[in-house]
């Protein structure tokens, strides 16, 4: 078993080395600077994610939404009897959560809205917002479940997907370009990714965990 494993790993590494050596040709692409200028953006990565390869991004978001459906189907929530909440509630933790939640949300929004000018964009902003919402777990799962109504969040998430689809239509069919579209798409992606991360974390916290 182990020699075979070593051989497999070695073979894959040799293949990677071949790819890295530059022996394989690379295709010609239009200069990203020109594309960015047409979009009124300065961050070339955001231009590609939201402009040139918008369909790509859209379907990757759909994959993300599908995995969340899988997580929801697989994990059954557990009623807490006798056992404590998943995150121990202490005054310090509660105060830290209250203090940090606001700045994290503001920073995530900043990262999302400035994503076409500097580093940032919908994906990191959504992940930041999702992690920030985790701070709310310090309040205890039961109380949180009472406050946050998950089906509403779900509808917001699917609404965000539909809105991205509509935006895609405007951009691809009508040929509209410009920074307002980039900002709108970044914000929608933030909503989508953040709600997805939140639903996953919330489900894991509500289930019992294993091993």
């Amino acid at each position, binding site marked *: 078993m182990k020699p075979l*494993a*070593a051989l497999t790993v070695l073979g894959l590494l040799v293949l990677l*080395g071949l790819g890295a050596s530059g022996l394989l040709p690379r295709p010609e692409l239009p200069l990203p600077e020109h594309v960015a200028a047409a979009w009124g953006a*300065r961050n070339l990565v955001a231009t*590609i994610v939201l402009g040139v390869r918008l369909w790509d991004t859209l379907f990757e978001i759909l994959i993300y939404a599908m995995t*969340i459906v899988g997580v929801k189907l697989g994990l059954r929530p557990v009623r807490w009897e006798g056992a404590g909440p998943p995150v121990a509630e202490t005054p310090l933790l509660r105060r830290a959560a209250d203090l940090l939640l606001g700045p994290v949300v503001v920073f995530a929004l900043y990262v999302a809205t400035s994503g076409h000018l500097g580093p940032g964009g919908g*994906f990191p902003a959504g992940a930041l917002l999702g992690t920030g919402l985790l701070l709310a777990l310090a309040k205890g799962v039961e109380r949180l479940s009472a406050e946050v109504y998950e089906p509403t969040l779900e509808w917001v998430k699917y609404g965000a997907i539909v809105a991205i689809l509509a935006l895609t239509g405007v951009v691809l069919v009508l040929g509209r370009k410009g920074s307002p579209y980039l900002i709108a798409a970044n914000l929608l992606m933030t909503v989508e990714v953040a709600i997805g991360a939140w639903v996953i974390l919330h489900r894991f916290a509500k289930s019992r965990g*294993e091993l």
Partner: protein
Amino acid sequence: MEGLTALALAIALLGVGLWTLIVRRNLIWKLLGLNVASNGAILFLVALAHRPAARPPITGLGPGPSADPLPHALVLTAIVIDFATLALALVFVIVLTERRHTQDVRRLERDEEHGWPER
């Protein structure tokens, strides 16, 4: 220099991750190895996008070549999808543990060989 270092690191991470994925028998450890291996694959793409003395792919930062923005854009979505698929895989491991009371792949394989008991 940075590019070469990163390439070496990417290949090493991929090796370590794949090794864990193949040799470890516990499913949770296998997933940890898979996570490190996918980090290596992502770093590999980003290292390929790097050019000597390149600036970030943002216009208006001054003269000189910029890193290739296309791999960055591809990798950005891959990182998020990685997280989502990892969550799904963990859910499968949790369900499996609930039913079969083990995370040992060899035992699971043997159980399957002998036929899974009736529900």
